[in-house]
Each structure stands twice: as C-alpha cells, then as structure tokens.
C-alpha cells in the first residue's frame, strides 16, 4: 500500500514533466504541421543551461531557469524562421531539418560539457517532505510539480481566454481558413514554437537537478513525447496533458513491478495499439487534411 501511494506520487511528478514537453510538441505540430524531432534536444539544452550557469558558475537557480526558457525559446524561433518557414509546403522537409538541428545541438552540448560522465546538478532545494511517515517527496520534485502545473494552467488560460490564443487554435484547426480570416500565419507560428520551445526549456531546467544530464538525454524525451502525443491525440492539447499523466502513472507502475525497459516496450506497444484502434487518440479531434 505504501508502495502504491509512493508510486502514484512519483508518477504524478513524472507526468508533470511529460506534459510540459508533450504539450509543446503538440502545439508545434498542430500549428505548423511539423514533427519537431529536435524537441528532446531542446529539453536537453534547457538542462545544460542549468548545469553550466547555475551549477558551474554559481548563478542562482530561478533566474537561470528563466534564462533556460528564453534561450531555448530563441533556438525555437530561429528554427521556425530559417528552417520551418521555408519548408512549410513539405512537412517531411521540416522533419528532416529538425533532425539536422538535433545533431547540431548534441554536438553543442558535447562541446560545452565535454564527454565523460553524465553531468549532475546539486538540487537547489534540499530536504524531503515526509507525510504520514512513509510518503517522501523531495522538495525539489514538489517544486517541479508545482511549476509544471502552473505553466500548464497559464497555457490553458492563454489558449482559451485570449484573442491570440483563439487565433492560435484556429490555425491549428485549419491553416488556410485561418489565413483567409486575416490571421497572420507567420506570427502565430512564432508564438506556437516560442511557447512550445519555452516549455521544453522549462522542462529541461526543472529536470536538471533530478536526472543525469548528457548530450543524448533527448532520446528518451522524444520517445516519451511521441507516445504521449499519440495516446492523447495528435491535435489535442488537453489530451496530451491527460495522456502525460496516465502514461507517467502507467510507466511508473510497470517500472516498479516489471522493470523499466518493459515499461518502455509496453508504452510503445500501447502507442501502436492506439494508432490502430483510435488514431485520433483518447481526446483526439479530427485535424484538417
């Protein structure tokens, strides 16, 4: 019983991180029609920023987190302007370009951090919250969960309560129709990738003190993001959030009882099953062809 409760909490915290980068991927795909294969590397750059600026040069954690968001956002905007915009007519070309970016970012990380053991960031928040003597949550993880939830709520407010958010959703629904309504697709694309990349940077920054940081850490991130995106429904942001939490709980429990690799295999099979049975995902909407 204790293990079950502890696992639920572990799963929820993981779910928060999963949601952050999966929502970004969905946003970029929805608005721009591009599968951003370099999304995991954006998370990685966020984590490296924390390692370099906070852990190496002693800059305080919170401003560094902000810096990570801004930096990764900047990378996203550059990708949109110079790669995705020129190739907008061909979604495959955008995907291939993002693979090119993936390679470049990995090398950048190797140049910054060198090869060798994974980097470690000492957690800025020490200590552990102990509830009922058997549930133990490190404050750093609690902080990560809180910030993820806050970021997702802000995004939800932005998308559903502001004009810009409506415009963004309109483009995701039907790009041509939205353009006809006078919505500037380039501006909306900038916002989508800015928000998506910013969330990836935030996820990386939050995960940095909790995980092994290395140039290849993006690989697991992108697999997770794909699974979450597909299970949640490619066009659906809320679906991505629900799927992130469900998948994180699923993954945590399978890891506890059957092992980590089995958990990932099950996740991938789950994803293929969803693709077969319900290609629009659990919360999916039909996206424009």
């Amino acid at each position, binding site marked *: 019983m*204790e*293990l079950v409760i*502890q*696992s639920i909490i*572990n*799963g929820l*915290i*993981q779910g928060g991180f999963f949601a952050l980068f999966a929502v970004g991927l969905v946003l970029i795909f929805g608005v721009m029609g591009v599968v951003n294969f370099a999304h995991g590397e954006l998370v990685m750059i966020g984590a490296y920023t924390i390692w370099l600026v906070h*852990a*190496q040069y002693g800059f305080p954690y919170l401003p560094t987190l902000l810096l990570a968001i801004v930096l990764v956002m900047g990378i996203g905007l550059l990708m949109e302007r110079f790669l995705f915009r020129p190739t907008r007519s061909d979604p495959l070309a955008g995907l291939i370009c993002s693979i090119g970016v993936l390679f470049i970012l990995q090398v950048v990380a*190797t*140049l*910054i*951090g*060198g*090869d*060798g*053991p*994974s*980097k*470690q960031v*000492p*957690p800025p928040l020490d200590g*552990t919250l*102990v509830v009922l003597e058997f549930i*133990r949550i*490190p404050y750093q*993880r609690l902080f990560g969960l809180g910030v993820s939830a806050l970021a997702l709520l802000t995004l939800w407010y932005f998308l559903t309560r502001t004009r810009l958010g409506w415009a963004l959703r309109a483009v995701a629904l039907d790009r041509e129709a939205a353009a006809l309504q006078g919505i500037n697709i380039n501006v909306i694309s900038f916002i989508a990738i800015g928000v998506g990349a910013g969330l990836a940077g935030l996820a990386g920054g939050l*995960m940095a003190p*909790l*995980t*092994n940081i*290395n140039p*290849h*850490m993006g690989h*697991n*991130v992108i*697999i997770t993001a794909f699974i979450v995106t597909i299970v949640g429904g490619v066009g659906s942001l809320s679906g991505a959030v629900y799927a992130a939490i469900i998948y994180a709980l699923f993954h*945590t*429990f399978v*890891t*506890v*009882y059957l*092992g*980590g*690799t089995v958990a*990932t295999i099950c996740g991938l099979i789950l994803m293929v099953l969803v693709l077969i049975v319900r290609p629009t995902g659990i919360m999916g909407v039909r996206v424009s062809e």
Partner: protein
Amino acid sequence: MGFTRRDILRASVAGAFATGATALPTQLLAANKTVKIGMNIPMTGDYAPWGLPGLYGCEIVANNINTAGGVKIGGDTYNIEMVAYDHGYDTEKAVQGYKKLVLQDEVKMVMMLGGSTVASVLPWAQRRKMLTTTLLPSDITPESEYLVATCESHPLYNVTGVEYLKAKYPDAKTAAIVTNNDAEYGLQSAATYKAAFEVAGIDVVDVNLHGFDITDFAPIVSSVLAKNPDIFCMATSFYVTPLMEQLYHQGFKGKIISCTLDYYDEIIAKTSREFVDGTIFQFPDFDDPALNDPGVNFPNPGDFDAKYRAAHPNDWSAVSWEYPAILLNWLEGAKAAASVDPTAVLKALRSAKNPEFVFGGGQWWGSQLWGLDNAVVGRWPVVVVENGKARIQEYRSVSGWLEKNKDVLIKHMKELGLRTV
C-alpha cells in the same frame, strides 16, 4: 564543485587532432628504440569515463619511464609510445581501430575496455597473434589465447566488499541488488554479489535489473525499499549517482555497498557527507597511504596520484590506474621474455607462477568459469568513504574466496543466463 570542462575539452580536441595518435615523449634519447603500445578504447560517448582516464594514466607512466632513460628489454633500451584509437564503444569502429593499431602502427600490445568491442576483435587477436588485454575477464573464451585480463577482474573482486561488510556489520541480514541489465557489466556483477551474499549468509530479497533508458530512479528505489533490505547493493556504476540521490531522499538508513563510486564528491554534493560516509566500494584513490603496503605492485602511487590530479584534476575514475597497471605488467613480461614480441611476452606472462598483480597475491585463474586461465586474481582492497574521502580498510583475497566458493558463483552465473564453460 569545479568541473573543469575546459580540461576535458582540451583533451578531447587534442585527441581529435591527433586522430588517436598521441605521441608523447619529446626527450627521446637518440640511442633508444621505441616500442608502441596501443589503446583501442572509448574516448568519447557514454563509455568515455572508462577509457580516456586510462590513457591519461598511461601517459604519466610512459613519461616517467622515458624521462628516466627508457626501459631495458633484452639487449635494447626502449622508450614507450602510447598510440590510442577512439572507438566510442562501437564494434564497427573497434575492428577498424584494432586493425589500424596492429597493422599500421605496429603496436606490441592492445589494451581494451571489454565487452562487445573486445569480442569483435578477438578473431583478429588470434590471427595476428596480438597480445590484447581487457578489463572484463568474462570476455575470455576457451579459444582466446591472446586475450588476458591482468589487472581488473570485474566483477570477482566484489566478493571482498561483501566479506568485509559481513564481518563488520553482522546484524545486516538482507540485501537488495540493483543493476543495469546488460550481460557485460551488470549481470556479471549481480551474479557475483548474489554468490557473495549467499556465502556470507545474507538473504537477497530483491534483484532489480533495469535498462539503460531510465530517466527517473524514484520508482525503482521505491520498489526496492518496499522490501526493507538491510543492505542496498549497486552492482555497476552507470547510475550510482541518481540511485544514491534517491536513497538519500527516500530516507534509506541501512548499509550501502557498491562496485564503484566514481566521482563520489558529486554524489556528496547531491546528498550529504554524512549520508555517503560508510559506503563500501572497491576502487581506491591513489593518494591512499594503505597503497604503500609492501604487497602492492605499483611504483610510488602517491607520486602518480599527484601528477595525475595536477594534469587532469577532475577526471579520476576507476580505470585511471588500471590501464597503467596493465602497462606495468607488460613491462615485467617483456623484461622476463627479453623481447617485445607479443607472443614471447604473453608466454613470459603466462608462465609466471606468481604473476605481478597490482595489489599483490596474484595467480592465473579463469578456466573453471571461462575456459582459459587468462585472468589474474589476487588481493583486492575494500574501500570505505570516511569523512568524505575514500580510504582502503583492508585487503582481502579474491583467489582465496574463489577457491572455496567457485561453485556458488558458477551457479549464480548460470541462473542469470551468463556464459560459463
């Protein structure tokens, strides 16, 4: 916690431009011949911590010898030149690098890390009669005459830590083992720990084998701690830091035993000194006074440590001294054979009744497990963290343990599906 990334960078760039060929001694004496020793190791990628630091160590040893005027082998005096090739733990590149070292650079010995990269060059070692070394004796096969493991006998030395733990903390009755699930490092080590615990009369209540794709260790540690083990045992070193961090946060109070504890100062930074203190593992720092023990066969370890830390302050890992120790073994063999010819050196090494082993007490072993007596086992140190510093507690005999308990070990190796003869 100054991690000198510039240092690593410089090293990697230097390695890059030399395309592996790191010619060292500049003070070559005109009369001296040069003998080249090859290293076909990972210098980039995930396995780099078990390759590159070894090259640094060998450069120091080679430099010491060369500045002292070289080494007398047979009638000639030789300088030593290290030639390294980075295979990045990729089998394809390992084969290419091996051929380059052997056929183009004409090295007299090739040192390697082990695992699939060694397996892929084995046919060539046999064919070219090239003395090849590994840190994983489990690479030895009944046919691999030219492959020896003269220094690290991963993971057999783990039995010493368990013996020490049993003697020091007789109340610890149950243990849980966590390791990555690869047959090269993780499972070998897990089987050895299982055998050692069985011999020590400690119950293994959980064996958690995880993959390399884990980003969050919280669920793993939670599920292991739910079994309430007195001892938490980490069988390989890839994920020691995140595991220790989780143990710390989830409030583990028992004993921790680990195969390695590389970069333990980083672990202390992520947890606390009090928490890490008392952790038992197997790899000493070389400024340890206990290395001046008369049985130890490593000339002036303190001086080696000082030179190493001056040149590469934050790159010390378990292999920093292991490849140099193999180089020293080779020198002994070459002197005894009065030749640098690989076959002659191998013969001289193998015919020694009491081979020089880095921690002393060495003897050839391995046929019962892998089919050939091509690994040296002897004494091995048990290391414990005291006040944030690794200190050798005692030396224990691995060969003695094997003599009595090898059947238990073979049983557990078979149980985990590992190759035995």
